[in-house]
């Protein structure tokens, strides 16, 4: 007997040619046959088919389809480009490509991510600076005790990079407390790198030292955005989902999770009933709840729902169909949070110069985030991303699909009805945040230089051994980015280079300051 072919094998057995595809996808092929009727035909298609059409358009644009003749290829590629333009028009977006921009430094990008996700990963030893390791290695009772007010984080160069974000300013007191309790010398703040501060934050917030990450923000920016969206547009959003004929219980559960926790991933949602059923009452009873006051059909009180979910017993309210089978979450749209401005382009420090109209903290601002259906997010909004950069960052090329409208907060398809608009930044709370953020904008590279300059004095003060080669690399890197345009920076670089030369000279003469693992004194 012939062995049944696996469904995966069946999926990939056919060669992808435009012709075999056209035969199987007559509805989509129709658009290619009548390109001038694109809007009319495309908008009538179900969402899944629209996505399939987008997939094929991209494959043609990227020449990933086996098309018989060059002439046919050219014609189809032209059509695909036109369709893509029309899709941009339908979604209030525009494709942008350009060159000559300065991408964000890795550390700056890391901060944007941390604020967005609200978590921090444990740093490895090799990622920490020599000075930080020196100051943290001085454990024990004999360690000098400092005053809390000695920990002036607001003037610590690399922490100033963190405190450009409101979220990091808010957790500053806890970090201060941690450093004080650990009796870490306040001089360390002047020389700590971004990685060092990450390590200190990880230890401040970790509840399990074996875990690879710690939660630093109770409500990360991403979740906060979803919660704010529900606060302002929740009713409209619920109504929109209902009009899509999605099961009432699914709509209710999704909106509840979005409102309470800022979560919109169906995998993290318990689909619950809205009214008591015999099954729910019996489950609640088994779960130890007093059900005497409740009757079948009665609306489940919000307080009870909140309590059950807080106790992580959402399954007690699990919605079932008439056969007693749990309701599937498959018909729920999967939403994700999208940065409308590429993180890469939040350069406050392009070429070492400040552009105050653009600053790092802006990347996570509410009008620069939006909810997008998952497939559309990856296929459409990120489907055209590319950044190519040269080693010295001088000739960078990028392409990206940008949103044209900062008020677009939710998009679930190409039709006008699938878009929602709201000005999330039009409130006093946001304006205060914006004002404070602007006051705290710093130039990342200038902060780096300040830190390196501090290393010069701190290593001498505590006799900490340091590798001049490693420091030289750091200085050269910054110097190549900011150049000698700024007199202040130029003077610092000159001073640092002079210091490094003296260190190297001392190294040749075997002076102890350059021993690799030499112990300092405090």
């Amino acid at each position, binding site marked *: 007997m012939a062995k049944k*072919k*696996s*469904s*995966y*094998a069946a*999926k*990939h*057995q056919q060669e992808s040619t435009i012709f075999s595809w056209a035969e199987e996808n007559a509805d989509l092929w129709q658009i290619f046959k009548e390109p001038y009727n694109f809007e009319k035909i495309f908008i009538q298609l179900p969402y899944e088919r629209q996505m399939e059409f987008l*997939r094929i358009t*991209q*494959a043609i644009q990227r020449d*990933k389809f086996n098309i018989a003749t060059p002439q046919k290829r050219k014609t189809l590629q032209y059509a695909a480009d036109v369709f893509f333009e029309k899709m941009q028009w339908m979604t209030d977006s525009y494709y942008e490509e350009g060159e000559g921009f300065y*991408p964000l430094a*890795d550390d700056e*990008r*890391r901060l944007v*991510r*941390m604020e*967005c*996700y609200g*978590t*921090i*990963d444990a740093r490895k030893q090799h990622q920490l600076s020599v000075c930080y390791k020196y100051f943290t290695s001085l454990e024990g009772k004999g360690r000098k005790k400092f005053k809390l007010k000695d920990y002036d984080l607001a003037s610590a160069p690399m922490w100033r990079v963190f405190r450009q974000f409101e979220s990091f300013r808010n957790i500053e007191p806890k970090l201060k407390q941690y450093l004080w309790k650990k009796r870490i010398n306040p001089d360390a703040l002047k020389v700590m790198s971004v990685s060092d501060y990450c390590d200190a934050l990880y230890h401040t917030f970790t509840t399990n030292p074996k875990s*690879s*990450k710690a939660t630093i923000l109770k409500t990360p920016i991403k979740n906060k955005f979803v919660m704010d969206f529900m606060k302002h547009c929740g009713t409209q959003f619920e109504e929109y989902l209902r009009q899509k004929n999605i099961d009432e219980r699914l709509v209710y559960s999704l909106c509840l999770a979005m409102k309470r926790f800022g979560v919109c*991933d169906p*995998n*993290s949602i318990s689909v619950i009933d809205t009214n008591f059923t015999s099954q729910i009452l019996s489950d609640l009873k088994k779960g130890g709840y007093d059900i005497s006051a409740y009757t079948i059909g009665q609306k489940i009180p919000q307080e009870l729902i909140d309590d059950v979910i807080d106790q992580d017993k959402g399954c007690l309210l699990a919605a079932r169909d008439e056969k007693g089978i749990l309701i599937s979450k498959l018909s729920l749209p999967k939403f*994700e*949070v999208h940065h409308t401005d*590429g*993180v*890469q382009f939040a350069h406050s420090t392009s070429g070492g110069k400040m552009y105050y109209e653009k600053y790092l903290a802006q990347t996570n601002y509410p009008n620069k985030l939006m909810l997008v259906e*998952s*497939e559309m997010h*990856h*296929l459409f909004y*990120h*489907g055209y*991303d*590319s*950044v*190519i*950069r040269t080693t010295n960052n001088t000739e*960078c090329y*990028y392409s*990206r699909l940008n949103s044209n409208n900062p008020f677009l907060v939710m998009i679930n398809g190409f039709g006008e009805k699938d878009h929602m608009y709201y000005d999330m930044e039009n409130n006093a709370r946001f304006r205060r945040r914006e004002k404070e953020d602007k006051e705290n904008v710093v130039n990342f590279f200038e902060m780096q230089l300040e830190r390196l300059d501090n290393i010069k004095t701190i290593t001498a003060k505590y006799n900490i051994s340091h590798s001049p080669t490693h420091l030289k690399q750091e200085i050269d890197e910054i110097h190549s980015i900011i150049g000698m345009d700024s007199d202040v920076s130029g003077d610092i670089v000159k001073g640092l280079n002079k210091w490094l030369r003296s260190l190297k000279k001392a190294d040749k003469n075997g002076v102890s300051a350059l021993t690799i693992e030499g112990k300092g004194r405090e």
Partner: protein
Amino acid sequence: MSQKFISYLQKQKFKQGETLESEALIVAQKVLYNMGLSFIPDAYGKFLKQHNGIKAGDCYLFGATVDDDLDIIDQNKLMRKPDNTLLLGYNDFDLLCYNFKQKNYQIVDRNDWKVLETYDENDLDDALLHIFNI
């Protein structure tokens, strides 16, 4: 093997592809090879036997599955990625790639393909944890 990651997963809510069929893995290897990419690295293949493609939050790991979002062949055809790499998954910011020239796993920035972290062939566990972290 990815034990640390698998035990991490046990505490998470996620969606996964259908159970891996050995024929599906062979098909995936063949198609990827014909696309000029490499075979699925051994450790990742073993991992797929336990979890054939995963979606949790904004994190995706690909497998030999009929689910288009998680299908390693479809995603390697569709998504932009650095040369000489096999795309194994991604999160909102980064791609998880296997560099078959250098024989290591790489965490690559989604936008500019800058290699942010490199993990040895034996360190799949750490690479998977990274893509699920930040």
